[in-house]
């Protein structure tokens, strides 16, 4: 085991061993390993298969830009597809599987695609699969869909929890490498509030993977000491395993903390991940740079790795990615990999440098170490099966040599990690100096430092980091001294080699999506010559690495193929998230039963005791009906409740209706402008039905208005429109007519309101109210209202009725709602009081022809609803002017009608359309629809409400209620919408 583990310290804990499995085989590693380092340490090099050709792939890098080494992590409901082995922190019992292969990783049947690769070029699917047309959905597409996709989702509900957290700071440091640590230290020392986030579980960035020295100590040690100092400062929060993935308006940053991904299952009461929303006065972008590969034949063979990643595995994880490691570089930086390998006593057969004249100092050092160097040479091919065995090099003079190597470290230069700098729409700028894009046009308050800004040296990182930290501290009122950290000179330098001409074998630009240099040439040939078109046509950069490992190279190749400079081609706008984020983390607690709040009525507990069946009405949960044992079905329950109200007395909690308190000297005048009917003429102690329009002339809502005192009104709104009406009124008061003396308050939550309805409701009320309020006879006539004290508490009574019987609504402070209901039930025992739910309420309102949500649907005018007579012609009000537009006043508009089946046994269905009797079922004969239906226990047949063109002139007409969706087609008779007590005698009795 661990045949590839090197001696020496690194950043792993050798004294502990962790067991894990990959494709069901057992391996071991150490704390501090990633899955990638532990597998490499065990000699495993084949980790995955590519998307299209199913080519064998190994580890390319050591960070979040990894395009190849994707696995399914964990099992069962916790299975997580497409997880980067380079970012998985090893834990005991970890189980990972390879993906997108069948039957197994070593032998993948779909690798036959590679043979067909001459057909499967970029965009081939746009040119074929068109004939016969019907075969697309049946044959071609299913095959493509099965072949596509990477890993498998678990298919089960995610068992873990997620949470959200908010934070505010003076400075957010994005990245905990040398530049970020320098910025954080500088700003935090004088006292600025600093948050530092790093996606790694170890702070230090490249300091952990390289053998830098700062002030005489190793870079890694400097990072540990800096971390310790930061932890000791009270205003600093260090968040490791935390990726800042999005920049949003208002200096808001989104970060994902992987709280429990490094343990087998989250510890008790811990979330799996935490979404941080950070508002930062200043941000320092210290996200470093990403090393590029070079495009050459067979550059995807397992064993071909980024040179910096090879260094990281050797120095940080003490793993030798191979035994014989060749280096192919286009810049100075690659040489350092060779030197580090030699330091680790590994065999470096050759350094191939594409440049004719590498710096003499490097050459001299290589010679001193006995490494063969090939300046001006290019690797143009690789040999081997599912792992690298050798490379083919073309020398300066064109001679070809083969070098045996099991690993090739490729150094194609560094690209600043600009992604977060462009989330708000800024564009990165092409820097000729480093041959890559650098941040320009940053989000407000953001400063880029270190490698992320194009400062590729350690000294530059520390210097720019500290300066930015000082600036940020200054903006928060802290004077921060600058510390000068001493570092050694180091070779840096830019590379400009994108691809090797004259390659043998496929040369990949985008590893994950199998986009080759030939695909790019084909796209250019076909006219896809902008970076964005190239991306869309070839899928370059659209993989899970979001193009981090391929985008720039692809664009540079596009530039070369179209004889342009990279600056002219431009780049793709990076969009959030920086790395992919679990959807569960973005939702956090808002899922399952907690998706939305659940609002309970004041009498909910009592209703539960009575065995009520509940229904969700928006966020409210209301009693739908109250079944009694022995009742056959809910219809008989509802029929009993309706009969109970119509013949005796029933009670219903109607607290969900919106209630708005309106007070002030101009309250009446204000409400005249709000409602289509006159309100100011209402006497104190009286209530009135009111209808309000939107400014476009359509009905917004209806309800009652009660005048409690001269300057005090109380409005009720429908349950569903309570919020919108409040907003509408607040707008009218604050924006349209701020000069009026009127104040508004929503009191929906403050008052419980209980409907008491039925011929014996007066009797019941008299019993419970006693001397508190006189309700007998003319003392409390229809539409009266009153405020009074009941048991020493404020109470209100309104004589209003939705169901068409003698009825009242009693309001008490919300906390007494349940007690009031219990008191009414107790007092009504001998009167046979029945509690009734929303269903019986609905049946009774249809019997009475009252419009509700299905009728007041945002497209009806007052006239459509038969409320035209309410609309006042004596005043202005919101909606008056536009309601007069010809389209809203046309005679053929649909009007509210009632309907009943000709065959009284037939049932009606809501949503049926109304067609003239005998007319064919076509759209041209569609004259209306059925909006609400119910079985009327009172009339003993089904009734409905609906809208019919010129409906009011057509009472008695016979029509078809046509519902092909449910296969129903019923003959109906158009009727007046009020089926029950049309004269309204019962409510006035």
């Amino acid at each position: 085991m661990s045949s590839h583990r090197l001696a020496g310290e690194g950043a792993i804990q050798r004294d502990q061993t962790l067991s894990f499995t990959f494709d069901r085989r057992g391996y071991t590693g150490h704390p501090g390993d990633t899955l990638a380092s532990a597998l490499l340490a065990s000699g495993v090099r084949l980790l995955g298969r590519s998307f299209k050709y199913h080519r064998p792939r190994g580890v390319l890098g050591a960070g979040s830009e990894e395009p190849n080494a994707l696995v399914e992590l964990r099992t069962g409901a916790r299975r997580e597809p497409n997880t980067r082995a380079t970012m998985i922190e090893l834990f005991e019992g970890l189980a990972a599987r390879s993906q997108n292969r069948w039957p197994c990783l070593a032998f993948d049947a779909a690798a036959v695609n590679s043979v067909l690769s001459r057909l499967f070029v970029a965009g081939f699917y746009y040119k074929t699969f068109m004939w016969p047309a019907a075969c697309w959905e049946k044959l071609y597409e299913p095959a493509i869909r099965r072949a596509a996709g990477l890993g498998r989702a678990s298919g089960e509900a995610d068992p873990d929890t997620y949470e959200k957290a908010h934070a505010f700071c003076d400075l957010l440091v994005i990245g905990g490498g040398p530049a970020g640590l320098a910025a954080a230290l500088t700003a935090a020392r004088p006292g600025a509030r600093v948050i530092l986030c790093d996606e790694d579980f170890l702070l230090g960035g490249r300091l952990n993977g390289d053998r830098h020295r700062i002030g005489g100590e190793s870079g890694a040690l400097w990072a540990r000491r800096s971390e310790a100092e930061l932890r000791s400062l009270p205003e600093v929060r260090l968040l490791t395993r935390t990726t800042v993935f999005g920049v949003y308006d208002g200096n808001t940053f989104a970060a994902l903390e992987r709280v429990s991904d490094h343990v087998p299952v989250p510890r008790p009461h811990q979330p799996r991940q935490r979404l941080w929303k950070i508002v930062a006065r200043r941000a320092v972008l210290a996200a470093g740079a990403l090393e590029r590969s070079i495009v050459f034949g067979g550059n995807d063979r397992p064993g071909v790795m980024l040179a910096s990643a090879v260094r990281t595995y050797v120095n940080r994880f003490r793993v030798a990615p191979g035994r014989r490691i060749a280096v192919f570089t286009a810049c100075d930086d690659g040489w350092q990999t060779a030197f580090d390998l030699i330091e680790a006593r590994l065999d470096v057969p050759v350094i191939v440098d594409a440049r004719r004249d590498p710096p003499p100092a490097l050459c001299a050092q290589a010679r001193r170490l006995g490494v063969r160097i090939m300046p001006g040479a290019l690797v143009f091919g690789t040999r081997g099966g599912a792992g690298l065995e050798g490379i083919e090099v073309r020398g300066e003079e064109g001679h070809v040599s083969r070098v045996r190597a099991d690993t090739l470290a490729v150094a194609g230069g560094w690209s600043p990690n600009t992604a977060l700098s462009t989330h708000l729409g800024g564009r990165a700028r092409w820097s000729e100096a480093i041959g890559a894009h650098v941040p320009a046009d940053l989000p407000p308050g953001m400063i880029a430092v270190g490698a992320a800004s194009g400062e590729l040296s350690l000294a530059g990182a520390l210097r720019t980091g500290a300066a930015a930290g000082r600036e940020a501290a200054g903006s928060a009122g802290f004077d921060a001294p600058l510390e000068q950290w001493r570092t050694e000179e180091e070779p840096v330098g830019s590379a400009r080699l994108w691809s090797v001409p004259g390659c043998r074998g496929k040369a990949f630009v985008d590893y994950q999506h199998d986009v080759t240099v030939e695909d790019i040439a084909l796209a250019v040939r076909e006219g896809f010559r902008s970076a964005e078109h190239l991306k869309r046509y070839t899928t370059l950069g659209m993989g899970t690495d979001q193009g981090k490992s391929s985008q720039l190279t692809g664009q540079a190749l596009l530039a070369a193929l179209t004889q342009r400079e990279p600056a002219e081609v431009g780049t793709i706008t990076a969009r959030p998230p920086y790395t992919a984020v679990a959807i569960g983390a973005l939702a956090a607690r808002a899922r399952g039963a907690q998706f939305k709040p659940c609002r309970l009525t004041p009498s909910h507990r009592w209703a539960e005791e009575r065995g009520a069946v509940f229904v969700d009405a928006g966020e409210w949960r209301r009693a739908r009906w109250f079944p009694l044992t022995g009742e056959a079905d809910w219809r008989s329950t509802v029929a009993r409740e309706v009969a109970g109200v119509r013949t005796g007395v029933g009670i219903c909690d109607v607290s969900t209706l919106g209630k708005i308190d309106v007070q002030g000297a101009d309250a009446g005048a204000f409400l005249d402008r709000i409602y289509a009917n006159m309100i100011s003429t209402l006497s104190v102690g009286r209530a009135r039905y009111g209808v309000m329009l939107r400014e476009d002339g359509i009905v917004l809502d209806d309800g009652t208005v009660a005048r409690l005192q001269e300057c005090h009104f109380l409005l009720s709104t429908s349950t569903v429109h309570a919020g919108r009406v409040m907003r509408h009124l607040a707008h009218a008061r604050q924006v349209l007519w701020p000069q009026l003396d009127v104040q508004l308050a929503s009191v929906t939550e403050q008052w419980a309101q209980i409907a008491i309805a039925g011929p014996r409701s007066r009797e019941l009320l008299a019993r419970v109210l006693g001397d508190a309020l006189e309700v007998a006879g003319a003392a409390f006539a229809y539409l009266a209202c009153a405020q009074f004290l009941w048991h020493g508490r404020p109470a209100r009574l309104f004589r209003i009725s939705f169901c068409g019987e003698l009825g009242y609504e009693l309001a008490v402070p919300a906390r007494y709602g349940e007690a009031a209901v219990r008191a009414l039930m107790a007092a009504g025992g001998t009167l046979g009081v029945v509690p009734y739910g929303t269903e019986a309420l609905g049946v009774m309102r249809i019997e009475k022809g009252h419009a509700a949500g299905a009728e007041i649907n945002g497209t009806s005018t007052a006239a459509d609803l038969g409320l035209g007579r309410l609309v006042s012609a004596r005043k202005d009000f919101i909606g008056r002017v536009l309601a007069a537009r010809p389209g809203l006043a046309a005679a053929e508009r649909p009007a509210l009608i009632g309907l009943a089946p000709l065959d009284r046994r037939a049932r009606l269905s809501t949503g049926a359309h109304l067609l003239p009797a005998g007319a064919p079922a076509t759209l041209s004969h569609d004259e209306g629809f059925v909006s609400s239906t119910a079985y009327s226990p009172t009339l003993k047949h089904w009734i409905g409400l609906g809208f019919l063109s010129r409906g009011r002139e057509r009472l008695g007409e016979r029509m078809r209620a046509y519902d092909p969706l449910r296969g129903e087609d019923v003959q109906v008779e158009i009727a007046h919408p009020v089926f029950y007590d049309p004269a309204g005698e019962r409510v006035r009795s």
Partner: protein
Amino acid sequence: MRYSLASLLRQACSGHRGWEPAWRDASPKSAYEVIIIGGGGHGLAAAYYLAKVHGLTDVAVLEKGCIGLGNAGRNTTIIRSNYLLAENNPFYELSMKLWEGLEQDLNYNAMVSQRGVLNLFHSDAQRDAFVRRGNAMRLHGVDAELLDARRVRRMLPILDFDGARFPIQGGLLQRRGGTARHDAVVWGYARAASGLGVDIVQQCEVTGLLREGTRITGVRTTRGEIRAGKVAVSVAGHSSRVAAMAGLRLPIESHVLQAFVSEAIKPVLPCVVTFGAGHFYVSQSDKGGLVFGGDLDGYNSYAQRGNLPTVEDVCSGGMALMPAIGRLRLLRSWGGIMDMSMDGSPIIDRTPLEGLYLNAGWCYGGFKATPAAGYCLAHLLAREESHELARAFRLDRFATGDLLDEKGQGPQPNLH
């Protein structure tokens, strides 16, 4: 060159060296019979139908950047014709019929995939509204089915049927609905139009309109003045800005709508699903990513990007509907500028200025309308009269009160 398996095989043998540009990258002439401003799906489709149906080929499509990178390349690729209103439903059904023959017509595989669009309902009231809509569809011969929860469960076992705050009661299914590959639609129309002689001019931003009295006679562009008999504006998201060049104000606001895609996974979703109790709709692309979206951010914006609260809102809708996607990762998000009209329905009409035509106000429904919008705009331009199925999409309907408000939200674009 015709696209086919045979031509692909032939090219494969010769290293694919013989493929030609999909469309000509034209330089603008000094004058055209018709200029269409906007190289999105609608503009290119209109140009194609002008040439194909009406024989008008002296046509230029002017695009300020590269074709298809506005809303045509930023939508969630859904096609459907499940509309309620008698003015909308036949129009979208025309579009659906055109989708159904699109690939053969254009000789370009736009991957029109009629895998079904399912609108879930979670309350009786919602069911009733869907039944009314489904019946309106059936009256026009459009397919619609009402599914109960049991059948939805059989079709989509991945949805949450047990612990949901708003349990799924059923759904309205249009089997002929589905998705199409948005970029391919753009490229297919561009290639076909270009093949018929239409000039597609990229990197040509219109900066002003040439005007003689009340007549528009051409455009001023970053590549010079171009005269035209007729100018059509088809620039969803920016309609107000182009109209302002003609001194017109439109009943339109520009709003940002975000869209999202997850990492690619093996198939889990056979159709398009919309959640009825939150802001979330989703489909799975052929590549394997879940493509999803939700509500507008809700404020006027030209920034082509949104903010975090909407991202959270959409993802919580997704988790409420299918908690199995919790560990699946959101890969990319982006924003498009929606041409939100005041009643939620589009405008295809003449303007008060002679020679200036408008195709606008598509809200977030523009992609599915691409073929029919192009078809009807071409009809209007060629015949000087509205196509019978687009007659209600008038610019003056706000003044006359003949509104086309499917949702009943009123003149509040962010609520449509």
